[in-house]
């Protein structure tokens, strides 16, 4: 992209059928590779189920040695893929609501399966998609053809697509309008931490429910290392405990998070 960021698309054929829900993720690394050691967490972007095999797709931003190793994969290479992992988005909560999907950076792939499900359930859904530049709006074409261009709002820092600036700006305009119309909105969001913090603040200010899909450094992805801690409100004396992003999340209700302590 014009911002200098690079992305890759990884398409895998899994040799058995898998039941994958929106917001779940997999832990990936090239088969047999020992450097880096740890697998990398990636949200499922697309899933084509089949009786004996499943086709899955991931979009990843190339940011370090793990994603660079993924980028070196070539057709027919084998990949170690542990998944599906984690809790999916709560779709029931969207019933009888308007939905605002808010995505930034490499967070949008995590929302595409969700958008498909929402459309299937005929829940009115808008996407607010932000990025540094036009090329950073991951999955823009897919979202646009799914939701319709009039339901996709973009923002780029360099102004190469949509409004200039942060995506939370069109989001707030939309929320103000809906609130004026007396319509209840549910937010689903995934993206860089600063964006999620802003979304959490907006959701708190406006008393709107929001489900956030978080990231954390993960060694295992399946609950055994306790490396992926996130502070969550609790009735204990300290007021919070640490939960695991991988198995307690990655999707959390915004109002449950105790970010201020970390």
């Amino acid at each position, binding site marked *: 992209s014009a911002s200098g960021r690079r992305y890759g698309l990884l398409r895998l054929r*899994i*040799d058995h059928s898998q039941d994958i829900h929106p917001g779940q993720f997999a832990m990936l690394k090239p*088969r047999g590779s020992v450097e*880096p050691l740890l697998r990398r967490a990636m949200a499922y972007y697309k899933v084509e189920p089949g009786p004996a095999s499943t086709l899955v797709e991931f979009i990843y931003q190339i940011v370090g040695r793990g994603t660079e190793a993924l980028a070196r994969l070539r057709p027919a290479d084998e990949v170690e893929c542990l998944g599906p992992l984690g809790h999916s988005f709560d779709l029931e909560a969207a019933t009888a609501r308007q939905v605002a999907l808010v995505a930034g950076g490499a967070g949008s792939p995590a929302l595409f399966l969700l958008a498909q499900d929402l459309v299937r359930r005929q829940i009115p859904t808008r996407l607010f998609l932000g990025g540094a530049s036009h090329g950073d709006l991951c999955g823009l074409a897919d979202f646009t053809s799914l939701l319709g261009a009039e339901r996709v709002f973009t923002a780029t820092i360099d102004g190469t697509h949509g409004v200039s600036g942060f995506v939370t700006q069109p989001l707030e305009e939309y929320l103000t309008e809906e609130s004026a119309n007396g319509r209840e909105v549910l937010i689903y969001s995934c993206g860089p931490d600063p964006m999620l913090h802003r979304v959490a603040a907006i959701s708190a200010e406006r008393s709107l429910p929001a489900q956030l899909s978080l990231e954390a*450094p993960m*060694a295992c992805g*399946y609950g*055994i290392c306790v490396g992926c801690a996130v502070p969550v409100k609790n009735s204990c004396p300290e007021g919070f405990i640490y939960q695991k992003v991988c198995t307690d999340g990655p999707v959390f209700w915004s109002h449950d998070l105790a970010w201020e302590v970390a």
Partner: protein
Amino acid sequence: MAVSLISDSPMPDSINHSDLLAVEIAGVRFANPVWTASGTCGYGLDMAGLIDLNRLGAICTKGLSGTPLRGNAPWRIVETQGGMLNAIGLQNIGAHAFIAEKLPALREYGARIIPNVFGYTIEQYIEAIEILETGEGIHAYELNISCPNVKAGGESFANDPRQAAEVTAAVKKVATRPVIVKLSPNVTSIAVAARAVEEAGADALSLINTAIGMSIDINTRRPRIANVTGGLSGPAIKPIAVRCVFQAARAVSIPLVGIGGIATVEDALEFIIAGASAIQVGTANFYDPSASIRIVDGLADYCRHHGLASIRELIGSLRLDE
């Protein structure tokens, strides 16, 4: 890009290696010498969906204390070359909850159950052990002595052979089950440490715990781990761990359990030849969940291929020109 895939599928049904791989440590018989290491397999059950827990020699639980601990603020882990740093802060559900919530289900599996225990004072060790004594189906305890002793200046128990011996002796007084003391590599002499806890009554030693390390984010100029320093684990520390087992084997006569960077059967064999009666798989569980089971199978293959009637023949079989 079309890429074919190997997914992590369940392992084939239990293969019974019968006596070939059985080892006895401190009077406890283990079906095989492959254990999962504390802090790298949760309370055991968390791995049940991925591997057959019946096929493990033993499961060492996440470190347990008398009262639950919340653990450190994030970030808690960072990957380094050939390894990773962690400072989880010993987050755990507490010994009571372990007995009530985990032990009943864990007992259903064939693997031996070894709670890993820690404290910041000797009294806290005793407290945790006394709670665990009320649990059924526990086969031994593993003492993590790498925690700071808050009553003695905050240095780790493991840093001072006398304190290490003291906590060992105190625990031995209340424990009716064998006590395995887990040694830290962050000492000048592993032999001195090993002898000190052997004399204090340890039934066996496990080694090594993590090596203390640190990683700095050069852009923020802050430590990458909230706790500033963390424990280095993984293949990077394997040569240090093999050396520690070798040195401890020459210093004591109680059995040793080797730990550190074990990810393949070849790694496990190095430790056994160096003197370990059993080994623990740690960090590898994170990136290769079935590593421990493949090691069990690999050990059996090695024994058959080398005409060994038992893996026990291999323990400490290092050949030196002396």
